[in-house]
């Protein structure tokens, strides 16, 4: 596939993520921050977000599996996840976290479990597209390096 075709594929993918509500304008801010001095900035932030998110989802699953739920701890993790999803522009994940926080405040276990499932669903949908995005970025960068050699 040509470099132009790869870039087009990446653009189409990112635009579709905006249209589907997976991403919001904060992601555009991150893209604008990427420059020649830090060509891997967006990839770095995405990777950090995914690592953090999966760690937090694991902890939330454990916490909600307890007979007596520590809602303060649950809320703390949801707050963190909401924060990092907001910083990355992960709109649907952020919105799902906002719902989740509501249920935490109400100490509603059923609501929290349902909300956790929704957050997981939104996160893994996004993760799948982020993986494709990063693969395309890598191919584009590799293409660029080959052309220089």
């Amino acid at each position: 596939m040509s470099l132009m075709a790869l870039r087009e594929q990446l653009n189409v993918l990112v635009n579709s993520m905006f249209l589907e509500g997976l991403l919001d304008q904060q992601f555009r801010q991150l893209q604008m921050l990427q420059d020649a001095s830090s060509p891997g900035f967006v990839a770095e932030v995405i990777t950090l977000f995914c690592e953090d998110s999966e760690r937090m989802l694991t902890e939330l699953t454990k916490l909600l599996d307890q007979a007596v739920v520590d809602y303060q701890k649950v809320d703390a993790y949801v707050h963190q996840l909401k924060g990092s999803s907001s910083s990355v522009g992960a709109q649907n994940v952020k919105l799902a976290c906002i719902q989740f926080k509501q249920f935490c405040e109400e100490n509603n276990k059923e609501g929290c479990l349902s909300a956790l499932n929704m957050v997981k669903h939104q996160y893994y949908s996004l993760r799948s597209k982020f993986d494709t995005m990063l693969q395309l970025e890598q191919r584009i960068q590799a293409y660029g390096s080959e052309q220089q050699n």
Partner: protein
Amino acid sequence: MSSPRGGDKEGGRDGERQIHVLAVDDSSVDRAVIAKLLRSSKYRVTAVDSAKKALELLGTEPNVNMIITDYSMPEMTGYELLKRVKESPTLREIPVVIMSSENDPDKINRCLEEGAEDFLLKPVRPSDVSRLCGRMRS
């Protein structure tokens, strides 16, 4: 924007030290973003993940022109870090900016009353960083 100009490696004017900002945030994502925002404005950035590490660094590194810290952090909050800085005779002149994802007027007022230079709502934008440039400690 009055960020340092010039052609030397550190981005400052000839003979002028580069402005050094200490960024404090327990979130790795937010740390990466705020560090990049600040470096894009040509500031030298040290990013740490806790207020405790920030205080340790401030004890050894005197040349910090601004501290920008998240409010909600485990063990020591950004507010507590702000108070410790403003209580210190050696650190009190360093402007401290607080960041938070929560638009809580009580929290904002408390920080400003304690001497915070500014309060930024996350996610922090380039325009937020631009408005800080004239308020670094010289």
